[in-house]
């Protein structure tokens, strides 16, 4: 057996999956495991101390969002934030004997799409708003849906996790409000790069998490505008205004707050740097014949390059890159739990002859703050070799 040589290199281009924790964030968090470990609900001195730290973390995030601290609740992550926003609002409508449409874009994260679908069990009607070939939501279709008059809730992600497309959130907010619908956005992917001011965005609810912004995993937040009434979807001790019972993940909250502060303070500089690297990567990879950039050219997160290499199946290419020490992800069916190709890539290619061909052959490269010029050069070289090899044995090339 020929020995398979695996590179010792480790080039991480999967930052949209999750980012490493910033050492400064980790440093802030440490004492909350060993020294400030008391329960913030305890009324003794140690408890009170932690409670005040929790308060200042909430204040910092409120400063970033330009909202009141009591409009923020902490959750276990982006998925839970989205669940509380959608189901919590559905439950509050139920209480008032109201039903209607719950809508989201057709390229939302599963944490939104699956929850929107689940509202149907409670008598609501899920609807999915189409996107164009670049992944931008079709505002005309949205308006058409809204003018039916029974749309209660709309969720559209700030930036897409797979293709990085940035949505016109302020415009969508306005449309929704014109027709009396509550508007939520999932800003998990956007937080390291885009403005999170809820006033200028005009949103009613906004989800955030730590693990995409150089903070810890297992922590998230949900902004809920004062006028929006939610009902709890889990029950217990009544923490976080009764919407997220359970002892607060204090170290996580401290980490999330610190991570968002760093990310927002550095976002302009890091966006500029990563955009340059991203554009180099895209330009070089599109020189390979029969490759396509998925998503919008300009309205795109600075760290995202998603490319289909026709004739090559994504999982195979991912594993070739993995062997060479480059870590990416794919929209191919073969690598998903469900064996379904990426819904996002299928949606933007729905007018092409074979949308599946684009999905099965797509690779997502997501740059991070540790990515260097030489990482990009090595990646380009490795992808070219991998595509050549796999196309040479491909029956679809």
């Amino acid at each position, binding site marked *: 057996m020929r020995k398979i040589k695996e590179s010792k290199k480790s080039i991480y281009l999967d930052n949209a999956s999750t980012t490493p924790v910033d050492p400064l964030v980790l440093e802030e968090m440490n004492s909350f495991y060993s020294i400030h470990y008391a329960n913030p609900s305890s009324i003794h001195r140690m408890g009170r101390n932690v409670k005040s730290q929790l308060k200042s973390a909430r204040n910092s995030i409120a400063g970033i969002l330009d909202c009141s601290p009591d409009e923020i609740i902490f959750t276990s992550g982006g998925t839970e934030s989205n669940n509380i926003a959608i189901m919590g609002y559905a439950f509050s409508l139920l209480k008032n004997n109201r039903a209607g449409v719950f809508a989201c874009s057709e390229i939302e994260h599963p944490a939104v799409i699956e929850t929107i679908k689940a509202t149907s069990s409670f008598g609501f009607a899920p609807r999915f708003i189409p996107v164009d070939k670049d992944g931008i939501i079709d505002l005309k279709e949205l308006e058409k849906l809204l003018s039916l008059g029974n749309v209660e809730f709309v969720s559209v992600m700030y930036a897409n996790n797979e293709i990085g497309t940035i949505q016109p959130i302020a415009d969508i907010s306005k449309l929704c409000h014109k027709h009396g619908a509550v508007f939520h956005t999932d800003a998990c992917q956007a937080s390291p790069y885009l403005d999170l001011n809820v006033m200028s965005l005009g949103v009613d609810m906004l989800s955030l998490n730590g693990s995409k912004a150089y903070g810890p995993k297992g922590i998230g937040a949900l902004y809920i505008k004062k006028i929006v009434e939610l009902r709890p979807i889990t029950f217990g001790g009544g923490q976080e205004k009764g919407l997220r019972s359970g002892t607060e993940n204090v170290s996580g909250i401290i980490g999330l707050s610190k991570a968002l502060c760093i990310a927002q303070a550095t976002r302009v500089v890091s966006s500029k740097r990563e955009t340059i690297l991203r554009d180099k990567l895209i330009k070089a990879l599109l020189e390979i014949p029969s490759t396509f950039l998925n998503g919008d050219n300009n309205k795109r997160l600075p760290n995202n390059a998603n490319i289909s290499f026709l004739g090559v*199946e994504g999982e195979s290419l991912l594993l070739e890159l993995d062997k060479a020490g480059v870590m990416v992800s794919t929209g*191919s069916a073969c690598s998903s739990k469900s064996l379904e190709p990426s819904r996002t890539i299928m949606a933007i290619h729905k007018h092409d002859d074979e949308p599946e061909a684009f999905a099965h052959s797509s690779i997502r490269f997501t740059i991070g703050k540790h990515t260097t010029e030489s990482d990009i050069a090595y990646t380009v070289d490795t992808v070219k070799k991998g595509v050549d090899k796999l196309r040479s*044995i491909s*029956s679809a090339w």
Partner: protein
Amino acid sequence: MVNWLYSKKVKEHFFNPKNIQLKLPPDDSFEATATIGSVICGDMMQVWLNIDSKTETIKKMTWKTFGCASAIASTSILSQMVEGKTLQKAREIYAKDIVTALGGLPQNKIHCSVLGDKALRMAINNYYRRVDQVDKIQHESGRLLDSILMITDEEVKDLIRQGADSVDKLLKQLKVGVGDKKLKNELVKLLKDAGKSK
């Protein structure tokens, strides 16, 4: 060392595949060929056979595959398994034999990525057609439900026996385009026959 996604054997065959047909061969350089699957399904393979007509033995099988690591590895190992085998013996190789030779595959990968045995049987049929021995042509056991992926009713019944109790689960395991109404109706019927319909 970090565990790899699949078995050692899959890894070996994926990274160093055997008997690849790099360039499309001229028509007179092989005795039979067949293609199965499609880009839409995510797996597509073509095999070429060199056959000794006197002994009806496979001298060499070469191939091209578009697909994931397990699809590439399964075609590669099949090309080694059939070398020197008579057509009759080669016909008796099924997906489960390929999976065993590979040291196992994740359950959800078996139906979608192991198509090589079907391509091989199609190629053998094509050979008999070409040499005018149509009496030796054998059809996949059972009734053909889908002619691109060569899915038969027997195969679907087998999946139902293994616990697939809805059309969605069957489609997922067979990895067939959800748009195919005709196939969907057939699956509904088979589920009903097996007493699994709701």
